[in-house]
């Protein structure tokens, strides 16, 4: 029994590390691209992708820990508490918001999908209020804070992807939609399955896939060319 638990815990740790490495590289890549851009909206969007990477690492380590164990992950989750989780989802909502703003510009007709320029103000107000209220009554508002960015992302990204005329942006949005869907699945599964280590392993798998989707979406964040092709000898 103990060795079975050790094995599961080992597999879980490997999965967590895979998610962390992929998400950390993706976040780094987003920050580097942000540094090279000058348009405010696009810089914000790249920052949003970096936030999504950070959120993914947080979910992998703070949310997933072997059941009944007293690992550093559990301690981390306990220390950081619901407020930090709420902040993670604020980060995810920032990502949704910045993506929506950029998505509008890639639509040749500049359509304001779901009247986002107005809707965002209301949603931001709700989001901030929820974070504040989470400190007082964690469970209810925490759930709301979670569903708001994820659901708005899941509704918005496919609509933006359909409307954009930009081939790169469409691919970025498609992978980003998959990322949000997998985070949703993982966190949704976490609620009933978190009582057993094997259940947590099942929860971790969508996060691994989410990390892959996030890295693929960042590939289409901006077209980056290879420097070798511009060396004088190659011209």
């Amino acid at each position, binding site marked *: 029994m103990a060795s079975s638990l050790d094995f599961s815990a080992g597999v879980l740790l490997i999965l967590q590390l895979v998610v962390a490495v992929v998400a950390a590289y993706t976040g780094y890549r987003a920050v580097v*691209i942000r540094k090279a851009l000058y348009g405010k909206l696009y810089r914000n969007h790249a920052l949003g992708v970096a936030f999504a990477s950070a959120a993914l690492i947080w979910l992998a380590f703070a949310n997933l820990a072997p059941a009944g164990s007293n690992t550093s992950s559990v301690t981390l989750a306990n220390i950081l508490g619901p407020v930090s989780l709420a902040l993670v989802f604020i980060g995810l909502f920032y990502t949704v918001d910045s993506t929506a703003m950029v998505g509008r510009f890639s639509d040749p007709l500049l359509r304001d999908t779901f009247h986002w320029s107005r809707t965002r103000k209301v949603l931001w107000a709700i989001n901030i209020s929820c974070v504040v209220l989470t400190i007082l009554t964690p469970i209810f508002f925490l759930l709301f804070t979670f569903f708001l960015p994820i659901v708005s992302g899941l509704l918005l990204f496919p609509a933006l992807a359909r409307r954009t005329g*930009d081939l790169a942006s469409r691919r970025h949005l498609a992978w980003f939609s998959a990322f949000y869907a997998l985070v949703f699945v993982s966190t949704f599964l976490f609620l009933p399955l978190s009582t057993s280590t094997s259940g947590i392993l099942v929860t971790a798998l969508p996060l691994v896939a989410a990390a892959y989707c996030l890295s693929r979406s960042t590939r289409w964040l901006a077209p980056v060319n290879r420097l070798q092709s511009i060396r004088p000898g190659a011209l």
Partner: protein
Amino acid sequence: MASSGIPALDILLADGYPDKSAILIIGPPGIGKEALGYWFTGSGLIQGDFCLYVTRLSVKEVLQDEKGFGVDSQQKVPMWFASEGGQIRCDVNDLAGLSYNIKEVLKQNAGRRIRIVIDAISSLLMLNQPETIYRYLTQLFADVKGYDAVLLATLEEGMHKPEVVAAMQQLFDGVVELRLYEEGLRVLPLLRIRKMRGVPPQPGYFNFAFTRTGMELTSHGK
């Protein structure tokens, strides 16, 4: 020659963009292509040229973006063809109307030096067959070059198929590329003059950075 409004770029272009020319600025979204249009227009307004800015955005959005690049054109403003807030409404679905309005403006300012910035080519390409836009631009350039005018247009990299981008580059007299390049773990924004009428081919790439006073250029690799 028409000054680009950026001293460092003027040096690179041997005094600015050629007279009676159509220039294409190509690069990914957010790299600062539009800023070249802002400085070009700003320089023209200071010199007393007639300036026309054609955009699918609203005037308010363009002015906000301009401020982000340190360009403040509140004192002297160009004529706007914009989706909102301009003298004439820019409808990217109405190619004929757009062409007619540009021609009318050219006629009305026939005796003056004219600068035109078009920040809607990518939208036009997305909404129409590329061949339609090639023909449309060929005709537009012929009309513009009948006057003392320089036209500068922006095109989004990554939004269109490579063959479309290559064909667009052929149509223009000059092409300035602003692109992101990977160097190790870094991503660098680099500028290259891909072609420019009257200027010998330049193989060099330049690091660029936007400052409050324009653009700083340094040769890449030095």
